């Protein structure tokens, strides 16, 4: 092999580059085979696990459901069933109870937190026109301070019945969700903050406020879409 290394005559160079080519192609084939094998072997299980994890989160924010379907928001503001793979789309997860009745919807939202982007899921119940649950999907908030948004019971209680009622003409939310300082909550559409996690808790309030202002009117008007998605025959 060392003979080939030095710059040599034409035939010799040819032979060595042929050998290189064969080696690279050979390794490439082995590698491709291994990758595809492991991908195919684990694909099914990974999808099941991911769906399970998502279901768990959706069940947490919309109480009393046992089934969920994914929808994505189109550019025209309508909802269509989706496989949930396109991450650039806004996704919502409709929840149904055992008798296939549409109970509520989990909405994915994200925004700027203290340390990085926060990704959350919150539940909306069109019947009572309230936010009924909240769950953090992804956060890098400071442990012990900012991550109170996931654990602080008083803060989480904000999202048991947060009013997002619509105006008469259903075009927008009557009183947008706004964050306030800890202990200053007087109206049912205000989110009480956490002292010591001011920015993180305010961020959650803002994310929900911004997202609900856009999504809630759309969802409210299209309840039929979610309803008919699971039992197409019922009217």
């Amino acid at each position: 092999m060392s003979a080939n290394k030095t710059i040599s005559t034409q035939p010799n160079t040819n032979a060595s580059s042929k050998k290189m080519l064969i080696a690279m192609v050979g390794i490439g084939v082995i590698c491709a085979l291994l990758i595809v094998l492991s991908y195919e072997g684990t694909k099914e299980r990974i999808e099941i696990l991911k769906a399970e994890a998502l279901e768990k989160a959706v069940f947490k924010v919309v109480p009393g459901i046992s089934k969920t379907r994914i929808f994505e928001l189109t550019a025209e503001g309508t909802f269509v069933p989706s496989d949930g793979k396109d991450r650039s789309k806004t996704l919502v997860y409709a929840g149904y109870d055992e008798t296939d009745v549409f109970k509520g919807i989990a909405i994915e939202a994200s925004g700027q937190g203290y340390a990085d982007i926060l990704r959350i899921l919150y539940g909306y119940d069109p019947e009572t026109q309230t936010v009924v649950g909240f769950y953090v999907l992804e956060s890098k908030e400071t442990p012990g301070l900012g991550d109170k948004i996931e654990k602080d019971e008083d803060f989480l209680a904000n999202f048991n019945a947060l009013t997002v009622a619509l105006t008469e003409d259903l075009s927008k939310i009557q009183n947008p969700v706004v964050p306030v300082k800890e202990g200053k909550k007087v109206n049912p559409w205000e989110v009480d903050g956490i002292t010591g996690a001011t920015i993180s808790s305010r961020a959650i309030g803002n994310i929900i406020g911004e997202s609900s202002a856009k999504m809630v009117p759309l969802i409210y008007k299209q309840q039929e879409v979610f309803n008919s998605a699971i039992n197409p025959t019922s009217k």
Partner: protein
Amino acid sequence: MTPTKTTDLKAGPSSTDEFIKGLWRENPVFVQVLGMCPVLAVSNSAINALAMGLATAFVLIMSNILVSSLRNFIPKQVRIASYILIIATFVTMVDYAIQAISVDLHKNLGAFISLIVVNCLILSRAEAFASKNTIGKSALDALGMGLGFVFALFCLGAVREILGNGSIFGFMIFPESFQEWIIMILPAGGFFTLALWLFLFNNYKLKKAKA
């Protein structure tokens, strides 16, 4: 502190040595200071550290075996490219395997699984050892180095989790009143803990040199 696992090895003394050196004398983290990025990044809890260590060890062992068995087949000019290709393959496999085991674990380790590809430890073992030695020796070398890496990661992860969260493997070991040292699970804690371990190692080495 010397591991006792070596006794059940059937190989001769020189092979045993290939194995032990990675664990202690040439420990990849504490002595060679290689592959620092994952060491610091995912060692904020014992379980993350252990999973990351095992994933790295697996890639190290498999790539060492494959590189060593192909060592007479790979031309010298393209060897680094071939090694990277082989390593990337095994990393992709590990990535899917971890996803199949636990989505949560995969989320915690995040991109750092993929980043095993550029862990200098693996490439340096392929280049410095596996490309020149038999399959058996390379496998032993990788096993030693891999376990040394796991050991080092675990040392860091355990310290950081115990002090930073008051728990080990998720079990609380301190009473409620324990005030967590939050700094230990923050990035800065990673630097400090590693500095502490290296300090202990240096101290030990200096003492030994004096004696």
